[in-house]
């Protein structure tokens, strides 16, 4: 029997590729559902604008936006300065454009930290149970006991301010939610027959975790990661607003807003615009996250 014959004639072997095909159509189904949700599309459109701005930043602003000309302070919008200038004579529009880079960078890295620590801990906690579960869950309880922005605030108070520490602080505060999420799916997956079969075949635990447990908890993780991006941006900007986040002269929206507060009577637009930028970014991630949830979880709606 030739190899070609094997390829075409044996239905049992063809079936091996079936899950792949299924995955393709599932992705298509999710996308078509997502496309039918107007709010998710609005969110996606806003995101495209932000990503575009972040990528095009150096093109529209070939010079450093931190560059200040003191005699140009508080200029009203003009041909030279599209949105006017701030208290140090820096171009507000360029600062906002550069802010998109820092905000997205910060959000993605922070959530990446949350995922990198949260997924394995959550999967191990749910899959192994016993003392591993107990230990991880008490750790999660402790992290979750710091309400809202407080954990990031306390971490920054300990680590010090600046871009890197803000990313670490916001990243650590994103860990517990992923632990809880993955643990819940791992708990149900570990009882399923195919996991039992894999274990009976002698597949090592780490491989079962990697090949079966993690992929099966992917849907809620994707939804949560999207929503968490919004939350991370909100917290990081909050730290910046308090003066405990990314520092001058980095054009980060939260700290721009915090500095502009002093000039609220002089130039209200310096307060309005960075806040609007933060609001837009968080809203976009929330809309896309909600859309994904509706598309991935047919039980809701």
């Amino acid at each position, binding site marked *: 029997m030739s190899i070609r014959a094997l390829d075409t004639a044996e239905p049992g072997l063809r079936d091996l590729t079936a899950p792949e095909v299924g995955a393709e159509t599932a992705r298509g189904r999710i996308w078509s559902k997502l496309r039918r949700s107007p709010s998710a599309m609005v969110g996606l459109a806003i995101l495209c604008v932000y990503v575009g701005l972040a990528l095009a930043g150096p093109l529209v602003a070939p010079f450093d936006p931190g560059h200040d000309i003191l005699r140009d302070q508080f200029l009203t919008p003009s041909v030279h300065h599209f949105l006017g200038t701030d208290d140090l004579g820096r171009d507000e529009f360029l600062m906002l454009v550069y802010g998109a880079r820092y905000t997205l960078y910060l959000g993605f890295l922070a959530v990446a930290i949350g995922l990198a620590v949260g997924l394995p801990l959550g999967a191990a906690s749910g899959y192994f149970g016993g003392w591993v579960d107990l230990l991880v869950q008490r750790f999660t309880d402790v992290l979750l*006991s710091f309400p809202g922005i407080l954990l990031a605030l306390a971490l920054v108070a300990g680590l010090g301010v600046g871009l890197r520490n803000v990313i670490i602080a916001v990243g650590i505060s994103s860990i517990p939610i992923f632990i809880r999420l993955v643990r819940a799916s791992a708990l149900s997956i570990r009882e399923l027959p195919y996991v039992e079969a894999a274990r009976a075949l002698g597949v090592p635990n780490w491989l079962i975790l990697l090949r079966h447990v993690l992929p099966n908890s992917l849907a809620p993780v994707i939804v949560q990661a999207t929503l968490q991006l919004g939350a991370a941006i909100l917290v990081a900007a909050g730290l910046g607003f308090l003066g405990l986040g990314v520092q001058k002269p980095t054009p980060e929206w939260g700290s721009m807003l915090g500095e502009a507060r002093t000039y609220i009577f002089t130039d209200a637009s310096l*307060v309005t615009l960075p806040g609007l930028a933060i609001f837009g970014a968080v*809203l976009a991630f929330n809309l896309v996250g909600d859309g994904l949830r509706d598309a991935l979880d047919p039980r809701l709606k």
Partner: protein
Amino acid sequence: MLTYIARRVLVSIPTVFGVATVIFLLVRLLPGDPARVIAGVLATPEDVDRIRHQFGLDQPLYVQYVTYIAHLLTGDLGISTRTGEPVTQEIFSRLPYTMELAVVSTVIAVTVGVTIGVLAATRRGTVLDLLISSLAVFGLSMPVYWLGLMLIIVLAIDIHAFPAAGAQDPLGFVLPSVTLALFSLALVARQSRSAMLEVLNQDFVRTARAKGAPLRTVLVKHALRNALLPVVTVIGLQFGALIGGAVLTETVFSWPGVGRLLVDSIFSRDYPVVQGVVLMLAVSFIFVNLLVDLLYAYVDPRIRYS
């Protein structure tokens, strides 16, 4: 029920210890020598040594930790390095302001949130539903400090309707509490809407309608009572958002609460106060969630915790 309460309380004790330990370690990570900060720039090395000894900073870490825990158990949070007052006193003099703000905001969030959430659910798919659902996602995405500043610009600077800052005037209450309430309001509205939708699909609601009970009675007596259960949980969760939001809101409105105290203390490296405030806020969050869990078990007879 009693055993359940006892067990829940016992489980939260190690969490409180964990929180205390994390805070202790975090504060010790602080870059720079706290003794030098306390002593000030003009201090001689002898002064710095004296202060290091006075605050126990010359002791090994584990000794400091044991002393810290022993003091915590007697309710002693240490002495503020900035004012020289006991930390508990600093916190208690500021706490009423934060409590007032938190209580008023929670009342706004729960009453308005449940009302519009139920309204959206009963008018599902209408313009009103769309409007309320959009308001909810806007509220969840809005930076609370930005909302506060926008309210100041429009209502305090432009039309002078409310004071921009301070807690002296009763009118000064309006802007901070509305600002702080919005996020929680959005959360509660969303949760009430989906809880209500779920209950409206249940058989007993259809039966009640079928036997001729008026819509109003069915909504209030049958649906709402059942929909309130998940809402109770969200009220506990929103308390966390409320505390985090209070730190930011108090900064925006120069409100003399514990949130401002925390931020000021971080800036002046007054670490006993930072430690004390974070611990107090975390423990009250644990406590509120404990209460919510117990309340949940009490109001829902279907749940039998053993």
